């Protein structure tokens, strides 16, 4: 009745899901495949869309690592919420800073050019 695990009851007493080797290997294979796709994509000339392409794939890889390797898929929703919040705040941080920096670029460039003359 108990297979290879010695005390299966206690691991489940922690309500902790034990991932199958298949799911871990499958996640790994997908991550490698996505890395290859990223490399291939970098050889194409996508212009300004390139960074969105590579960041998009990186985000998919990140979600896979978080869901399966870090087993967020079978974790308490509160922990997932914490992660989502941190990403949201990081996005606000970077987004607003970029808006701010870009807003003054014309003045900065004019000043720098005048300094260089």
């Amino acid at each position, binding site marked *: 009745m108990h297979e290879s695990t*010695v005390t299966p009851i206690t691991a489940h007493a*922690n309500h*902790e899901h034990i*991932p199958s080797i298949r799911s*871990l290997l499958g996640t790994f294979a997908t991550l490698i495949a996505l890395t290859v796709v990223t490399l291939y994509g970098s050889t194409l000339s996508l212009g300004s869309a390139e960074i969105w392409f590579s960041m998009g794939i990186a985000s998919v890889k990140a979600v896979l690592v*978080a869901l399966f390797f870090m087993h967020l898929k079978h974790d308490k929703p509160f922990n997932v919420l914490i*992660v989502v919040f941190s990403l949201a705040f990081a996005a606000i*941080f970077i987004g607003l800073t970029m808006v701010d920096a870009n807003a003054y670029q014309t003045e900065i460039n004019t000043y720098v050019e005048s300094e260089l003359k």
Partner: protein
Amino acid sequence: MLNQTAATVVGSQGQENHEQSHPRFLAHHFHSSEQQFDSGKLGMWLFLITEVMFFSGLFCAYAVYRSTHPEIFIYAHQFLDAKLGATNTIVLLCSSLTMALAVRSAQTSQQKMLVVYLTLTLIFAAVFLSIKYVEYSHKWHAGLLWAGDFHPVAGHEHAHDGDGQDAGKTTVMPRDVGVFFSIYYALTGLHGIHILGGMGAITWILIRAVRGDFNAEYYAPVDFVGLYWHLVDLIWIFLFPLLYLIH
């Protein structure tokens, strides 16, 4: 089989009250091992999001400079070897797999496999750092340093462009190329320090695993160090395309 608690009975009688009410690994300020585990996991996730915010500062610097001075990034990219970067990406993905397998081994009380997988994770981490050492020492000799110390040695300007393309090999060097390298060294250096710290934590867990500390009842430290390690891998997953695959 496990020398921990005197009353540990493996698998047969079910959980006796004595062992259940006070297992050796249960700290006194927790009323159940489940609460202890959940608290530890919450603590580790909170720490991980502070790490995310920590790195987001540097990612912010990258984003601001790349959006306002893209010519620096396009020019400086030729000095990075995408092949080495890609190899390191694969190496870290392998280390994440072996780390996840190590956690699973602890969850299923397979001590031998736990030790094997933790050792493999350390080996992959060491390979990653060795490749970074090769990259750093090459740049050092080529004068490719940060900020004002960026003085490319004559004849070394065109380091290998790993993907074989001629993209970005402009002959005119833009102003302040050192800024790219400041960001590069800060990002990869900080990440490397985190790899080192992770290797230390994994080594400690490995020692405890050899000692027989972990089993299906108590594997929390393995789980949480695993979470940290996956985050370090995650950060590199973003670093690689941002630094090595600019065109």
